[in-house]
């Protein structure tokens, strides 16, 4: 291989000008839409009041009691925790309803329903493309963004966020469309459990803050042991719900920091090997060990968080696990009793 060949080929990785402009337009739109935090909070109160006014459960597609249960069978055991008729918006042509919400503050699942009210709405429903023009954050989504309101100009906890929207095209009719929103954070370390929900209406994109605190119970269990699974950190506690788990730890000291004035969003405070070698298992009451996978995140060293500074592992709960049958946690061979 010649170096010049390599350089020429890297040169060929390019987005066209149209794509470049489109991305910038989305960034600008996001920037323009940013509002001071105080304004947001007053809007939250208004949104909460609007939520209270919604008193009737909208009609879901025939014979389907819960789209969340339908699409995520593991949520059937949390049926009682699903909030119904969460939010409704009506512009005279189209009605948008957040029908269901299931949340443990780390994972948020929502179903959203659009229904035409008049002919104009019917035309809009039939032709509207739920694309990047109305996504605040990501053009990957079909038109929704839900992000934690972490405020501006603050040190943000080490929370990574992902979200996606899927249109349930199998339920699409001439007058209705259905969407499934999936939001996932790496921990609950954000300032507010208010998700910013952006949704298109015939008049343009509307935003509202939805309370994503949810009512899926979360257990916090302290992890105590004399020995440590790594020379770099000591596990402190685990948060466990029927939707997710988060294992927190305290680091033994920042492994490496960047030289100032760099201001990186996150700092990898452990050597690569620590991320790669972690072996973590739930130990079930029948003795079975279930390997856990997930992401590791550190908080910003400047944050001086006094309860944990490392999310050792966090993720959706592995499938087919009854959390009542988890008796222990094993990290790099060190066993923690969870009973």
């Amino acid at each position, binding site marked *: *291989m010649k*170096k010049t*060949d*390599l*350089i*020429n*080929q*890297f*040169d*060929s*990785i*390019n*987005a066209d000008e149209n*794509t*470049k402009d*489109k*991305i*910038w337009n*989305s*960034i*600008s739109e*996001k*920037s323009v839409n*940013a509002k001071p935090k105080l304004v947001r909070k007053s809007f939250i109160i208004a949104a909460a009041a609007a939520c209270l006014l919604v008193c009737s459960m909208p009609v879901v597609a025939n014979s389907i009691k819960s789209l969340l249960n339908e699409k995520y069978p593991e949520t059937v055991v949390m049926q009682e925790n699903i909030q119904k008729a969460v939010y409704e918006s009506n512009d005279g042509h189209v009605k948008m309803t957040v029908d269901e919400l299931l949340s443990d503050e780390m994972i948020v699942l929502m179903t959203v329903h659009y229904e035409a009210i008049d002919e104009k709405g019917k035309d809009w429903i039939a032709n509207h493309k739920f694309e990047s023009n109305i996504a605040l*954050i*990501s*053009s*990957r989504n079909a038109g929704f963004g839900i992000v934690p309101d972490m405020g*501006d*100009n603050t040190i*943000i906890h080490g929370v*990574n966020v*992902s979200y*996606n929207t*899927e249109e349930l095209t199998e339920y699409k009719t001439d007058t209705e469309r259905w969407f499934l929103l*999936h939001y*996932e954070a*790496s921990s609950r370390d954000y300032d507010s459990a208010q998700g910013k929900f952006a949704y298109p209406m015939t008049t343009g994109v509307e935003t509202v803050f939805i309370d994503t605190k949810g009512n899926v119970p979360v257990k916090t269990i302290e992890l105590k042991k004399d020995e440590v699974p790594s020379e770099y950190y000591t596990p402190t506690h685990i948060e466990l719900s029927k939707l997710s788990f988060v294992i927190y730890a305290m680091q033994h000291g920042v492994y*490496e920091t*960047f*030289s100032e*004035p*760099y*201001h*990186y*969003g*996150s*700092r*990898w405070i452990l050597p*690569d090997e620590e991320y790669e070698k972690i072996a973590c298992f739930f130990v079930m009451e029948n003795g079975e060990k279930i390997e856990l*996978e*997930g*992401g590791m995140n550190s908080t910003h060293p400047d944050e001086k968080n006094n309860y944990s500074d490392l999310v050792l592992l966090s*993720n*959706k709960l592995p499938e087919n696990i009854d959390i009542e049958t988890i008796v222990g946690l094993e990290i790099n061979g060190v066993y923690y009793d969870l009973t």
Partner: protein
Amino acid sequence: MNSIEIKRLYEKYFDTVYRICFLYMKNEADAADIVQDVFCRMIKRSPVFDSDEKAKAWLIVTASNCCKTLLKKWWYKLTEYNEAMGKEKTEMSDNSVLTAVWELDKKYSLPVYLYYYEGYKTAEIAEILNEKQSTIQTRLAKARELLRLELEE
């Protein structure tokens, strides 16, 4: 940092950020999304840089972290999800050199790009990626070895 300044950095470093995202994500849609995410973070956090080179380093690290985060997500790993989103790995036909780089593990491809294309020294790459210099040197050596083997096949 005002919007004019960010726009200037966007114009100057868009290609760099896009290429890094593309090397990680292997499809145009995700690369474009993450470029957007990276510059949105720049607007939100308003970091202070004393030179464009520092801004560039910030963009590289942030892009890399954003890609890593997305790739770790369980739902992203689902083939059905990517199929539903209409995302397919971009084909690299008739381009054996780039295909070979493409197939490398990310921990090798990014140093290769930064070293050979962007012209960073190994010490600089180490600082940007928060790795030991020896680690970067080892990865570059390993990448060179892998690329040679791949291209000979």
